[in-house]
């Protein structure tokens, strides 16, 4: 009853095509934006901002990127960690070489560089499909991590192979490096994520998004409507890598502050983001957020419950955590393989009728 659509008539295609055609959805999004931008940064303490909100936002960005490639265009990729590394190392070199360009342009640039690399590694996608493509992306993953570990130029020949984020300012506030202002970091990342999430949603519901989905659903038939498979797939790789690269750049420069290739960007990272979009929902921008929230919050919750609540030894807690994550993933895949986004949609359907049963 609350979620009734009756009485909301669309009198133009424009209204029907709006981002949130149902009025109740609009209110919810509005409220969410107010909460995220107006309330959260001032209410939550630094721990919450840094340990939870920042990684949630950054992983959401990466998840949107991977969702574009795998959820919308159907190209499975296990190279997310490697591409995040490209973003991170790009912005590192850029921050040292041309800091005067300003932080945000550097983030965009590192996204573009990653897009180029992603397009390159996407070339095999014309010949290779499905699971085999996933393996090909693993080649990218292993190669990239190896490269950022071995080739000294990337980490300025630092003995440990680590890169450290030099401090940069935005509007006079330090945004990167150990002195970074947490509130400012949060607002910056939240803004970037909001803007690019909107962009992704727009692309997804337009011609390009439809062509991606056509490739995903039946690539042979997609050619029928004039889609050139290689161009469509490469564009998906490019846009996806752009997002993942930006996520990697922010991951390193704003959140971690320092990173080493094999630790921060290894295959577990690739799995993590893939889990996020599967649990969140393939082919759904909202799903990317939900999945990221789930997989960022859950380990923290588990650790808090076990270590603080039951006093479990930290090492044991870590093992149990792994078991629970694994079990939850299996459980999710059994119960709702279409992810939280589908559960959300079902909930909305039920809300349409509530409190009536049918």
């Amino acid at each position, binding site marked *: 009853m609350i979620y009734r659509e009756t009485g909301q008539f669309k009198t133009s295609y424009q209204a029907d095509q709006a981002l949130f055609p149902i009025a109740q959805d609009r209110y919810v999004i509005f409220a969410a934006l107010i909460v995220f931008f107006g309330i959260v940064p001032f209410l939550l303490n630094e721990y919450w901002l840094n340990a939870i909100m920042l990684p949630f936002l950054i992983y959401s960005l990466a998840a949107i990127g991977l969702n574009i490639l795998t959820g919308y265009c159907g190209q499975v990729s296990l190279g997310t960690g490697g591409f995040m590394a490209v973003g991170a190392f790009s912005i590192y070199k850029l921050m040292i070489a041309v800091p005067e360009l300003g932080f945000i342009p550097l983030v965009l640039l590192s996204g573009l560089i990653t897009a180029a690399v992603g397009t390159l590694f996407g070339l095999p996608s014309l010949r290779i499909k499905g*699971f085999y493509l996933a393996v090909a992306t*693993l080649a990218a993953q292993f190669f990239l991590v*190896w490269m950022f570990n071995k080739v000294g130029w990337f980490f300025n020949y630092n003995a440990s192979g680590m890169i450290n984020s030099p401090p940069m300012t935005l509007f006079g506030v330090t945004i990167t490096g150990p002195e970074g202002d947490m509130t400012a970091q949060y607002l910056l990342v939240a803004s970037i994520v909001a803007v690019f999430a909107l962009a992704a949603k727009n692309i997804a519901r337009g011609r390009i998004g439809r062509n991606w989905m056509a490739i995903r659903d039946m690539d042979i038939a997609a050619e029928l409507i004039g889609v050139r498979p290689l161009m469509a797939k490469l564009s998906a790789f490019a846009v996806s890598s752009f997002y993942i690269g930006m996520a990697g750049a922010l991951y390193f420069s704003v959140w971690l502050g320092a990173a080493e290739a094999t630790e921060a960007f290894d295959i577990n990272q690739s799995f993590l983001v893939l889990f996020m979009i599967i649990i969140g929902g393939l082919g759904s921008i909202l799903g990317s957020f939900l999945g990221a929230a789930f997989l960022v919050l859950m380990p923290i919750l588990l650790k808090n419950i076990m270590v603080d609540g039951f006093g479990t030894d930290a090492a044991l807690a870590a093992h149990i955590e792994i078991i629970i*994550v*694994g079990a939850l*993933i299996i459980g999710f895949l059994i119960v709702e393989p279409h992810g939280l986004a589908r559960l959300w949609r079902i909930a909305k359907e039920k809300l349409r009728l509530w409190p009536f049963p049918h």
Partner: protein
Amino acid sequence: MLFFIEVVLSGLMAGVMYSLVALGFVLIFKASGIFNFAQGVMALFAALTLVGLMEKFNFPVWLAIIGTIAVMIALAWLIERVMLRHLVNQEPIILFMATIGLAYVLEGLGDILWGSDVKLLDIGIPQGAWEWLWDQGIYVEKLELFAAVTAAVLVIFLAVFFQKTRIGRALRAVADDHQAALSVGISLNTIWVVVWSVSGIVALVAGIMWGSKSGVQFSLSLIALKALPVLILGGFTSVPGAIIGGMIIGVGEKLAEVYVGPVVGGAIENWFAYMLALAFLLFRPQGLFGEKIIERV
């Protein structure tokens, strides 16, 4: 020249070790269409159980092996009951993700049950250099030779099993078409328990070989990641392919590491196998022995 032979032989042996793990994959893929990412962890888990039974419960070797086999069969039954049964018609990527989840569960479980420190595994497999060759200046590990022979025996056994026995035939039917198999009365669930058990035993063998060679530790589970290029080369559904693919990858890797490695700073082994697999995929996506994928409109 001698050194070259040694590198090649060493590569072949390493390749056989990869093949042992790849075999487990092939079995499961053949019979259920699932790529079991947890295969490597299963090898680790099996080895951990074996060592655990021998050390903590003081089982003699033969009893420990039987005990571990029993554990793997029970595990297979559990996996079928709790996981596979509920995922019957899902897409391959979902199944794959489920096996990653399974890998995490087994990893955590193994750590909790048996501890995560490195363990020594010695069940009496001969170690040390093979004297006859060593006299000629070539170093080959007896252990690796033993592994190669074991693998050969396994392959022959599995080949016979698939071709000649009733269950083997049923397995092939299930691999081809689940519904058709069901309609002739083959119980999918039983087949899956059988397959995962056999796979578990193969994992145990792999775990024993790898564990004897470098100790039972977490890195054992990462072998799974190496098995993927092996499968690509050999074909996901071919038992002999797993062996030959393994050998090619093993030799290729070693040669690359020894001759190309120093030029680019070493540790090429991390990705060489994958690049090789990638090159293969571009020219022959079904691998050396796999079935060709034909798409009809």
